[in-house]
């Protein structure tokens, strides 16, 4: 019976190919748009999540504060008020699991005939823990390297590639601003940061080396910023409060006066970004769903026309013994047939479109089985929902009226 009805649905669709095709097209576009938009939305979400996890979790950045001299207000970081000692003190807080001071600068690095301008970070080995960063080859420099301010360097992958090509950089000597540094290791690939910077385009050296030998500073022992990792997501507010209190004490900031530093919860900022992406992703899906809805209305429209056109056929079927539910099933089947075929084509086109977007625009796309299954289910439901009214109209026709219909 069901098989027979499928055959008849197929015949009915074949009877007016152009119309069936156009009706299906609405579904194709709707489903295709949903699949494509979900792929792009989830792709964006994936990139953001990736950047966030590459940043490290539960992360704070403490920047030295602004200063005012002679009415001229300098930006954040203008007064180097933070010190390696501050970092040391913060690391002793119970809410903080790792702390790394950072003294960044830009320098020209040379190996053999290659040279490259990159960011050089003076920091401590704890930086790797704070950023969840692994060493891919060789070793990280140690605390004793920091104490004795040795000239050692950990290369980011981009720097290693630019200076060494296929050569193994470990234990080679590079020159940073003319001074020789021993490459002790190469960092694992980290990818882009949230703001799109290549995080692998950097070199890590001991903070002491950076301060005393590479960049120099008029304020001995100061760093540009400190990165700290909270012990857990729940402990973040307490950790922020504790650090602020500690640093105000260490910097002798008067009660009520403005702090000479800023504590920022980077993870919270990142989560806001992720939230925004999620909202965007949902919005893309919602907009695409509207086209699915329009496709569904197209099906309903055509099914209504079809019921009217085939009134006589319905009359014949009723006369020879079709029950109401047989007629209902038949028309419902046609609607579902159209929507599911349209959906299948739509999924193929949507996935194809996503692949094209991925390759031409280099936007990350993520196609999950669940999004395809969802598109399929929604399409089937649209078919049932919009097919039901015309089908019921057909089933409820009075046999004598239907038979007499010209």
């Amino acid at each position, binding site marked *: *019976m069901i098989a027979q009805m499928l055959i008849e649905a197929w015949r009915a669709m074949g009877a007016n190919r152009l119309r069936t095709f156009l009706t299906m097209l609405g579904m194709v576009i709707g489903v295709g748009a949903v699949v494509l938009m979900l792929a792009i939305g989830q792709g964006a979400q994936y990139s953001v999540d990736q950047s966030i996890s590459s940043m490290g979790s539960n992360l704070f950045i403490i920047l030295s504060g602004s200063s005012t001299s002679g009415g001229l207000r300098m930006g954040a970081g203008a007064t180097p008020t933070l010190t390696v000692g501050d970092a040391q003190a913060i690391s002793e807080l119970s809410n903080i699991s790792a702390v790394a001071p950072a003294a960044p600068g830009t320098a020209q690095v040379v190996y053999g005939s290659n040279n490259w301008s990159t960011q050089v970070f003076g920091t401590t080995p704890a930086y790797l823990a704070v950023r969840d960063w692994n060493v891919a080859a060789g070793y990280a420099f140690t605390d004793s390297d920091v104490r004795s301010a040795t000239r050692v360097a950990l290369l980011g992958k981009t720097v290693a590639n630019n200076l060494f090509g296929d050569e193994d950089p470990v234990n080679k000597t590079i020159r940073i601003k003319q001074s020789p540094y021993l490459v002790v290791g190469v960092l694992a690939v980290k990818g882009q940061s949230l703001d799109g910077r290549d995080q692998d385009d950097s070199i890590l050296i001991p903070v002491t080396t950076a301060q005393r030998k590479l960049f120099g500073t008029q304020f001995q022992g100061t760093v540009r910023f400190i990165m700290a990792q909270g012990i857990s997501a729940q402990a973040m507010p307490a950790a922020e409060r504790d650090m602020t209190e500690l640093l105000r004490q260490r910097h002798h900031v008067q009660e009520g006066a403005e702090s000479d530093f800023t504590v920022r919860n980077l993870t919270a900022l990142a989560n806001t970004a992720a939230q925004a992406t999620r909202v965007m992703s949902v919005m893309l899906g919602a907009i695409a769903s509207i086209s699915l809805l329009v496709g569904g209305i197209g099906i309903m429209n055509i099914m209504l026309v079809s019921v009217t056109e085939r009134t006589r056929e319905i009359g014949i079927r*009723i006369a*020879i*013994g*079709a*029950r109401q539910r047989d007629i209902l099933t038949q028309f419902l089947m046609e609607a579902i047939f159209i929507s599911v075929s349209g959906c299948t084509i739509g999924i193929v086109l949507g996935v194809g479109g996503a692949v094209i977007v991925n390759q031409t625009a280099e936007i990350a796309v993520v196609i999950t089985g669940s999004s395809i299954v969802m598109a399929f289910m929604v399409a089937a439901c649209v078919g049932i929902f919009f097919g039901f009214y015309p089908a019921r109209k057909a089933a409820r026709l009075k046999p*004598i009226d239907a*038979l007499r219909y010209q």
Partner: protein
Amino acid sequence: MESVIRIEGLFKAYETAAGPVPALKGIDLAIAPGEFVAVMGPSGSGKSTFMNILGCLDVPTIGKYVLNGRDVGTLNSDQLARLRNEVIGFVFQGFNLLQRATLEDNVALPLVYSNVQKPERSARANEMLEKVGLAKYSASFPNQISGGQQQRVAIARALVNRPKLILADEPTGNLDTKTSGEIMNVFRGLNETEGITIVLVTHEPDIATYAKRLVKFVDGKLIYDGEVSEAHT
């Protein structure tokens, strides 16, 4: 013997904007198995309404209709559908075949609704097509054969579920005289050799002469019920 059709005090009125318009005004009639009845009457006499009620396509306003031992007035729409499917075979003036289906599928259609499986459907449909002399056209479509042949296919469809009663509504109305005679011979053969009860609506006197009994309607009433004779057609 129990009548195939027993009608008692049948009234039918249609609701219109101007109030109810009566179409049948008190009909009593019984048709025994194996009868061949011609129904005649001018247009508007109520004969179409009568046939619709006989075919369980419409229900009486007042009165009782017992078909094959079942009181039609007590049945729901599914039971009526089943009755149409198993007890009645319809033959219409306009043939009413499905244009998109092959002749075999057209003939087999009633069997689809009585849940007969595909191989048996096919076998029985072909058997019926053979009976009406169209076996070789089973894979053709209705628009590929003549009107007379289409009406034979419709008869095959009416017969496929082995009905007790065939209701033919002006079955020769769209056919020429020669073909009409052939079709009427098919009906006569079915009635005589298989004992199938036939009720035939027609307005042509010479078609009515194929039947054994004649009923005439005028203005919603039965004015004649008896032998088919010149005087009354």
